[in-house]
């Protein structure tokens, strides 16, 4: 079949000639779609910020102001230099940091101060191996104890009858309802009475430069 071969040759030739243009048009479409998605997300974020502000104002009106004093600290050492899921930060006793202070990035609580030195402090991340944190899972706010698995990962177990889904929020107890993350994976076997819920902090520790210490 010389004709078939010829046809194939012509098709591949045309593909080589017009391929880049086709690719360019699909890239343009994808770019356009991403722009629209980004615009929608920006609007949603704006709406979320308004809701948060309104929430804070309402709490303040009811006498429960959640505005807390914080101090910004630079991260001196972080994983993987630090092997224990700990951070060394450049704020210590002289800057008002004390033992047990919460440490956060944006609105996410990521750890607590474990040791304080005059100008530095050691922070244990909530995800440090064996570290336990009380959390509320999903819209139903099911209480559970999350155990740190290192590298920003957590694991917890709840009865299998509890309705949870991937993407459900994981919240910390308290009036702020601070978010710890979102459910990444649910593992359940037919023979188990419990379901294992896996989630991770939405903060990349490997790129962390600044944190806030809540005084």
């Amino acid at each position, binding site marked *: 079949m010389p004709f078939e071969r010829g046809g194939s040759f012509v098709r591949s030739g045309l593909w080589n000639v017009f391929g880049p243009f086709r690719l360019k048009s699909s890239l343009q479409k994808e770019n356009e779609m991403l722009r629209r998605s980004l615009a929608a997300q920006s609007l949603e974020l704006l709406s979320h910020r308004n809701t948060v502000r309104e929430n804070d104002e309402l709490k303040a009106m009811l006498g429960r102001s959640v505005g807390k004093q914080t101090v910004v600290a630079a991260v001196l*050492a972080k994983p993987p230099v630090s*092997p*224990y899921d*700990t951070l*060394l930060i450049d704020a210590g006793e002289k800057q008002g940091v004390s033992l047990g202070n919460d440490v956060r990035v944006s609105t996410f609580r990521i750890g607590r101060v*474990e040791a304080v030195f005059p100008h530095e402090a050691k922070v244990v991340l909530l995800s*440090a191996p064996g570290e336990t944190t009380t959390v509320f899972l999903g819209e139903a706010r099911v209480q559970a104890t999350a155990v740190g698995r290192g590298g920003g990962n957590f694991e917890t177990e709840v009865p299998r009858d509890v309705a949870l889904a991937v993407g459900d929020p994981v919240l910390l107890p308290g009036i702020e309802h601070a978010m710890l993350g979102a459910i990444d994976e649910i593992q359940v076997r037919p023979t188990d009475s419990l379901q294992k819920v896996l989630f991770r902090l939405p903060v990349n520790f490997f790129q962390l430069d600044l944190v806030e210490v809540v005084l």
Partner: protein
Amino acid sequence: MILRLFLSLLFFASILFFPWWLSVFLALVLSIPHDAYEVLLGGVLMDALYGAPVPALFDLPIIFTLLFAAFFFAGAYLRPRLRIRDKSV
């Protein structure tokens, strides 16, 4: 001797600036041919700098002290059996 000095300096620099697994690797490299006391010191330093309570070790942050001590004693045990001569002595 110069190689040991270089590796020891690199070992201490790795504790402060490089990923922890590099420190572990260098501790192992230093422990096999020498009685590398600096490795023990490095373990204590790592635990003091970065340590957090470890539930499995009664909340003591001593993983690297124990690990590097194990390297040290394993080196001392294996050296005569592997016919490695400590050139630094």
